């Protein structure tokens, strides 16, 4: 790598890692709108299916991989070893270790960072990262009153004590608890949080709908062109993401009623069309050292260069809930001697269309750059034609933990394809916002 120079920056982060971690490829199942095709598929079934497709594509049957890391945001307590159980149900060697990891919507990317780091450190030669989520098969818990009473009854030594404990159950306690994506500390849903951020940055309805329309169109083009032929394996009869609306239009999107921010003073702009739907799905990414990939005659799409996570104080209203990547990226690029101009592709997770737009707006704002990011001025603006060129979560859907794997595999294939076409290195920036004011970002580069 040291000999390869580019007209732009030199190969990023070359001085940092003891060795490279490379992305070999990825596999996911098509994403399905909640309650539809995967309505009765469990997280474990979906993640196993995504793994099996990956194993088949790369001929990994019986292979002992270094580690499989992944997770789910909405998870049953019985799934404590979700990823390991999925490995045991797959064609991989049962001697492949695995563990669960969770960082809300950044789970998939954080899992990839973890695997890449282990590879770079020489702890493992190969690994799979990923994530899975189902809203359709989400856990439903008993009420706190019921739970306490059942636990106490279980601990009771005499039948009288047991009866006494159970007698505390009131009719109101019979109501089950469904999982909520509301922020525990604010009680606000993610959409309501983002509505505040959207209003703060003055993002218009039209700009958001434009992003949504482009997402559907770009994703549909990518499917038509066969881009996903080696990135997706069908599951349960679903062959493409069923949230995708290739025939949607600006008019159709403009006709939708706003669903978030209706109690704000400013006009509400966020609709079901420019927000991600609840989705079921799973994704995986295969990583390895260069030596491992070579020894297994496997292709190498990209080098996983570096990553940065960030968190923001959204609880006290200082920053928007989904703005953490805005803080992570400047730090990530500074460490690697890169600027926004050095990237061919930006994969910015579309939690909402306005997430992309508030991110761009914040980076282009000089005061924000100075006061919030500690920079001399605005961080910079980026070429919009390089953002989410094959669509993103608005069209594909967003099964929380599965989104990171989808994006990393797409970004890796994008840089590999571009480099093959131009003969020059290509680079992608990945940014995923997450609940809890979290964000994870990463740089991938062609090899």
């Amino acid at each position, binding site marked *: 790598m040291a000999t390869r120079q580019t007209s732009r920056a030199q190969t990023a982060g070359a001085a940092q890692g003891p060795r490279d971690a490379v992305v070999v490829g990825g596999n996911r199942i098509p994403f399905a709108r909640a309650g539809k095709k995967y309505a009765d598929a469990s997280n474990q079934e979906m993640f196993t299916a995504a793994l099996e497709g990956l*194993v*088949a*594509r790369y*001929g990994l049957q*019986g292979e002992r991989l270094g580690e499989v890391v992944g997770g789910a945001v909405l998870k049953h307590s019985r799934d404590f070893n979700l990823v390991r159980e999925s490995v045991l149900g797959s064609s991989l060697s049962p001697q492949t270790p695995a563990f669960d990891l969770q960082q809300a919507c950044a789970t998939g990317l954080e899992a990839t960072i973890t695997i890449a780091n282990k590879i770079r450190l020489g702890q493992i030669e190969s690994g799979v990262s990923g994530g899975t989520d189902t809203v359709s098969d989400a856990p439903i818990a008993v009420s706190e009153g019921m739970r306490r009473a059942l636990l106490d009854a279980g601990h009771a030594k005499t039948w009288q004590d047991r009866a006494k404990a159970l007698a505390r159950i009131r009719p109101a306690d019979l109501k089950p608890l469904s999982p909520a994506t509301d922020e525990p500390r604010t009680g606000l849903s993610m959409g309501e949080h983002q509505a505040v951020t959207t209003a703060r940055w003055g993002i218009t309805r039209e700009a958001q709908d434009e992003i949504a329309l482009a997402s559907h169109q770009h994703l549909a083009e990518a499917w038509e062109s066969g881009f996903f*032929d080696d990135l997706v*394996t069908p599951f349960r*009869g679903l062959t493409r993401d069923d949230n995708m609306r290739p025939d949607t239009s600006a008019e159709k999107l403009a006709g939708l009623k706003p669903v978030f921010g209706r109690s704000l003073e400013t006009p509400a702009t966020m609709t079901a069309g420019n927000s991600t739907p609840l989705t079921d799905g799973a994704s995986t990414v295969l990583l390895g050292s260069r030596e491992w990939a070579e020894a297994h005659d496997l292709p190498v799409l990209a080098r996983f260069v570096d990553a940065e996570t960030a968190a923001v104080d959204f609880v006290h209203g200082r920053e928007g809930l989904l703005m953490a990547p805005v803080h992570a990226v400047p730090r990530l690029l500074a460490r690697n001697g890169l600027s926004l101009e050095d990237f061919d592709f930006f994969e910015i997770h579309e939690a909402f269309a306005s997430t992309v737009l508030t991110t761009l707006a914040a980076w282009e704002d000089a005061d924000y750059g100075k006061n919030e990011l500690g920079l001399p001025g605005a961080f910079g603006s980026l070429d919009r034609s390089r953002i989410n060129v094959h669509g993103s979560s608005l069209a594909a859907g967003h099964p929380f933990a599965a989104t990171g794997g989808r994006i990393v595999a797409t970004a890796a294939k994008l840089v590999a394809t571009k480099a093959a076409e131009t003969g020059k290195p290509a680079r992608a920036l990945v940014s995923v916002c997450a609940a809890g004011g979290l964000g994870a970002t990463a740089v991938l580069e062609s090899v």
Partner: protein
Amino acid sequence: MTDRYTKAVNSGFTKTLATRLGLPRPAILRRYRAGDPLTVGPVLVVSDGASKADADAVAQTLLGWDLDVRRDPTDDVRWGAVVLVLTETARPADASEAVLAVGSVLRRLAGNGRVVTVSRAPADGDTPELAAARNAVDGFLRSLAKELRGGATGNGIVLTGGAALDQTSVRATLRFFLSAKSAYVDGQLLQVGPADAALPEEWDRPLDGKVAVVTGAARGIGAAIARTLARDGATVVCVDVPAAGEGLARTANAVGGTALQLDVTAEDAGQRILQHARERHGGLDVVVHNAGILRDKLLANMKPAQWDAVIAVNLAAQLRINEALLDAGLDGLHVVSLASTSGIAGNKGQTNYAFSKAGVIGHTRATSPLLGARGGTANAVAPGFIETDMTASIPFATRSVARLLPTLSQGGEPVDVAEAIAFLASPAAAGVNGQVLRVCGQHMVGQ
């Protein structure tokens, strides 16, 4: 997988009933399992006087396989197989004694027994008498096969171009016809020409170390072909359309191969198959063109889309891929294409399908010398009624009648087709080139 009728008439009370009523009683066919004996009993080798030296060579071959070889038809045994050698018969009258000797043992031919004729094809310059003697075997064998019972079959080896009895390809063909691998091949004569081929190190792994591509491998016959080639030692690249990826991954993982989601009608399908095989597996030795579709309609009602789709998938795709394979100049490449008995004898409502399958036979014959020049072969296999998901959708009555039409009075299994393909794909079968082998239980009239 034996159909319910066949099971019923072969066991318990229903067997007695079927016998009393004189119902057709299809036998339960013996199929290949590693470790089972090659034949179900001793093998009788008979010949006319002129062919005695060749008969001795056959006997030597059989002794090398540890078979109980006899030369006296009056031995009181349950015969496992009879090999009739008529390679040097000069006049029709000379065959009488040997042919009648075969007749004398047929009542003692065991269930799943075998009759194999070995003769020479008429050639340019033959005297009328010699040509008559040689061609007579054809009609004799096809008629004899129809007289055999209990799952016994009759097939013939027809030597061309001066092929010798001790040649590898002749031995391999003899072994295939004697074995349980040819369970559903009946009444067929296969031409074997002179060709250099090494004997396989292990007859149970004739494809050891070979790389094979199977199109349409997601299910049915394609999945059975992938399994059989893998059992014989090949690394299998499983190809199917992206929409069939779920089944494809299952097949690939079951056989320890790789899944390549690819539409065979794509312009660059041949190049992509080659690239995958070379980069991931270091070469390409076998290609099985199995992918095919049905769009049955009477020609009067045929829509352009129905006609064109069948031709595109079943015929044009094979031609285009073969072109790429020939351009690549691979040595020792064995190509096996799926034809169909519909393409030979015709079938109402299948003008498009029969056009495509007869076309396959045409290009196979034309391709064979081109591949033969580099030590390869091109052959076709024409299945008759095979029990698959596709034929399971045929109405019950039609299906039941279709099963009883062949001499073996039953449908074949996907594995029967797969065994024939695995045989033709093996290096030892190098002398079988440009042939169409029917796997139909001796279904209809025509060759």
